[in-house]
């Protein structure tokens, strides 16, 4: 019923999703905090650009990334001169997963920071705290349940990324073949046992993560 000869798609997928989520967190959380409190000209424009990958078809994102990091792409050529190739390596899968999951992290984090009463931040300011201290001791802990929700959504999205990944990372077993790509090609080749097993792994794993986070977040309300 269930059998898997090659575990590499699972390992590659986890590695790609974890690294993507780390990048997305480091970029998305400070960005979200800045956008939640700051006002500047062109804010709506920046906001739309960050959110765009959420609604674009994955193939459009894949094509955009190809133009960017492909052998003749703007960034790709500069990297090639430095002796670095990203295209069709698992790093490009990380890049694709990062681009598609950033909007989810960003949206959740922004909502979470906005939900923190500004008077707590003001109070901290009157008590002599620097902006950095306020971020780490007030804003971050109070926004934490929302941030965690964003983290989980971003992780799930990164783990499930298919279209853009296939276009920029391809389907190289043991190197760039992630679970969704492996499922697609297993079904295509009539290997239903492998497809079924990978589907079961992804479903159970995703369910457990979301279940645990929901339970945890329910206990974290002040």
């Amino acid at each position, binding site marked *: 019923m269930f059998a898997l000869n090659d575990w590499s798609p699972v390992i590659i997928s986890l590695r790609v999703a974890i690294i993507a989520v780390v990048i997305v967190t480091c970029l998305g959380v400070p960005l979200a905090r800045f956008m939640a409190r700051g006002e500047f000209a062109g804010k709506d424009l920046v906001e739309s650009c960050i959110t765009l990958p959420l609604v674009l078809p994955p193939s459009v994102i894949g094509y955009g990334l190809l133009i960017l990091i492909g052998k003749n792409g703007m960034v790709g050529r500069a990297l090639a001169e430095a002796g670095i190739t990203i295209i069709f390596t698992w790093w490009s899968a990380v890049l694709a997963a990062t681009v598609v999951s950033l909007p989810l992290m960003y949206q959740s984090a922004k909502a979470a920071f906005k939900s923190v009463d500004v*008077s*707590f931040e*003001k*109070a*901290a*300011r*009157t*008590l*002599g705290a*620097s902006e950095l201290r306020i971020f780490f001791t007030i804003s971050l802990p109070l926004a934490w349940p929302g941030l965690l929700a964003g983290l989980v959504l971003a992780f799930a999205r990164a783990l499930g990324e298919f279209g853009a990944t296939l276009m920029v990372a391809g389907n190289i077993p043991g190197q760039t073949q992630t679970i969704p790509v492996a499922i697609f090609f297993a079904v295509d080749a009539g290997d239903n046992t492998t497809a079924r097993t990978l589907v079961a792994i992804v479903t159970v794993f995703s369910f457990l993560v979301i279940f645990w986070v929901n339970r945890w977040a329910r206990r974290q309300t002040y």
Partner: protein
Amino acid sequence: MLEVNLVKNLWHFNLELKLKAANEIVVLLGPSGSGKTTVLQCLAGLLKPSAGSIKIDDKLVFSAEQNINVPTRHRDIGYLFQDYALFPHLTVKDNVLYGPKSRRAGTDLELNPVELLDSFGVGHLLNRYPRQLSGGEKQRVALARALATRPKLLLLDEPLSALDRNTRLSLRQELKNLHKSWQVPFVLVTHDEEEAEYLGDQLIVIEKGRVQEIAVSHVVGK
């Protein structure tokens, strides 16, 4: 010594205020929307006045002419927020320690937070969280937190409005005693005339940003 001469342009009227106070309680009395809280926020540096100057303890913290605007955290003020703004994720003890830890100046730590809380009659609540406190207890903890940094000026925004009548009557006496022992100017905002007359050494009535009346009384124990 507190010296204020400020103008703040608001969208529906211009706020203008001049005041000079030694170690006394200045009460700003006016209906809601008259700009009282705006004055406090300007003094605290949470809002920037449009023109004028502010001197706290003979130190110039704001001057439109000289382009000086000392950030809130360096103004040496204590601010009691209307809803107290106690950090919900920190215990009473950590709330009170937040200021001294933020400043990290050795002299500030002369003030033992436990003793301070004891002097407000809430020493037994050290390990409680704000959600576990009554209105009166929250107010005392918030006062202790605001004073823990030894401010040169204490700003109080409707300090008694959220409390029931009995607590209010006993706390306003405590506020008077507190002022005597701390010997720094207090600027207190209220819409309650009786409270204003009871507490104020100097009474400033504002309506729609204009000072309507200034009354000075030094009758102690009125």
